[in-house]
């Protein structure tokens, strides 16, 4: 048995013992320098590829949206029609009345190219991640709430811990809590797919072949509005995600996601 395998086996023992309900055992069992794989290579690589793409999509998305910071519902909408809502920001095109006396520079050329290139990478990355998570153990073991024991008591305890702004404990370093699982599941299986779907729904060519892409979300402009709202929700998730990582121990969690070197008890005490 190699050192890594031994460390991994030890990691599982520790979780098992902790799950059995003994905090004391955990503290006893974890040596100060425990090294055990926390995240698989697949999770780590897809996580950082997605991070990179997300920032590219966010930057280029903001750049694209300022060319028309008005949103509509239904099939059509333009400066001659009433909007559903407007962003209180200046625009990069002179025909959009924004209340500002200046027009921002138009950067849509590279922004659109970057947006679609990053979209390709994030979609392919997401496919690899989702398929291998479903086929492997990642989805069942790490993400589905059953793996952390989805009971009302567990859930309310987790929510209460979050509301009290309690620092995530040792346990969360090894296994996601229920609230965390639900957050990740909704990002992976609701928000990202919705962003991709509504992105496709804005493509006149794809919609010509698959009209349901647009009709099911209420039309071309509805797709654009949903795409924007989902992006805002993803940014909110990102902010909370970063705050939680910082509270849980930034260096430790970053190390776990980069090299997979998991926590050492000493960093917390």
């Amino acid at each position, binding site marked *: 048995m190699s050192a890594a395998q031994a460390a991994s086996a030890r990691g599982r023992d520790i979780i098992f013992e902790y799950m059995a309900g003994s905090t004391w055992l955990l503290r006893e069992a974890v040596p100060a320098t425990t090294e055990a794989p926390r995240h698989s290579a697949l999770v780590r690589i897809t996580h950082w590829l997605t991070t990179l793409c997300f920032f590219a999509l966010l930057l280029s998305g903001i750049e*694209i*949206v300022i*060319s*028309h910071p*008005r949103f509509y519902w239904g*099939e*059509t*909408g*333009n*400066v*001659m*029609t009433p909007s559903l809502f407007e962003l209180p920001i200046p625009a990069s*095109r002179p*025909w959009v009345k924004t209340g500002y006396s200046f027009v921002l520079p138009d950067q*849509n*050329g*590279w922004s*659109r*190219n*970057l947006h*679609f*290139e*990053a*979209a*390709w990478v994030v979609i392919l990355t997401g496919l690899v991640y989702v398929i291998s998570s479903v086929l492997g153990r990642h989805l069942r073991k790490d993400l589905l709430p059953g793996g952390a024991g989805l009971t009302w008591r567990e859930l309310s305890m987790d929510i209460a811990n979050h509301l009290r702004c309690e620092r995530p404990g040792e346990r969360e370093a090894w296994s996601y809590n229920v609230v965390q699982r639900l957050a990740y599941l909704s990002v992976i299986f609701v928000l990202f797919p919705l962003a991709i779907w509504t992105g496709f729904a*804005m*493509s*006149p*060519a*794809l*919609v*010509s*072949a698959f*009209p349901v892409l*647009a009709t099911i979300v209420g039309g*071309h*402009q509805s797709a*654009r509005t949903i795409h924007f709202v989902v992006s805002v929700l993803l940014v909110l998730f990102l902010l909370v995600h970063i705050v939680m990582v910082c509270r849980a121990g930034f260096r430790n969690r970053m190390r776990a996601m980069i090299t997979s070197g998991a926590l050492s008890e000493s960093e917390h005490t």
Partner: protein
Amino acid sequence: MSNFSRRKLITTGLAASAGASGLAVAVRLADRYGLIPPDYGGIYGPGTTLTYASHRLLTGQSLAREFPANQISRAPFAKLRPFTIEAYDSLRAGGFVDWRVNVDGLVARPSSFSLAELKGFPSRRQITQLACEEGWSFIAEWTGVPLMHILSAAQTLPQARYVVYYSIQRNWRQSIDMADALHPQTLLVYGMNGGELPMGHGAPLRLSLPRQLGYKSVKFINRITVTDSLKQFHKGSYSWYAGI
């Protein structure tokens, strides 16, 4: 240890050369089947090539959605800054009777058509959406002659791969591949919402290309060139293919 690294070296080398030759074959095949856009190079080349290739494979000759008349936008926005071109103004003053569109390049019969001649071709009416890359859109009824009729009248040569179309406004031209040029919904439009094409929408002649974004639907068209290469025609930072 040396054994291990040698094995690793051999497998890595094999994998790399298999990958490289696989990619080379894929690129040649893709090019033969018209799956490589003219702007395939540069850092954004992979993205734009994947989009173009997948759309060509997935959409085929699919038809853009056509809408019922009650969905026609009451206020179709026309993005146009005023311009003055003497030639345009005098043609407009004459009711565009002297407007001509010239067809040249890889055609057996270089031709020139007046608006009256264009209206003599079989026409098509379609109520489609025009979506701008900025994010806004409107639905209008467009009346015009399918571009394929004009191309067959001029008899495009077999080596034709792209059709370039020019506006009377300087430096405004776009191009499409033959799949889009011969698509039944690709129209040279002279009428809109039951009347003449208004100036703001490109009077007297514009393109309707509902499977791509608005920036491909050039206004004030007066020249069409058939070509086998876009090397001297395509420039600019916007993606050549705008079906997104």
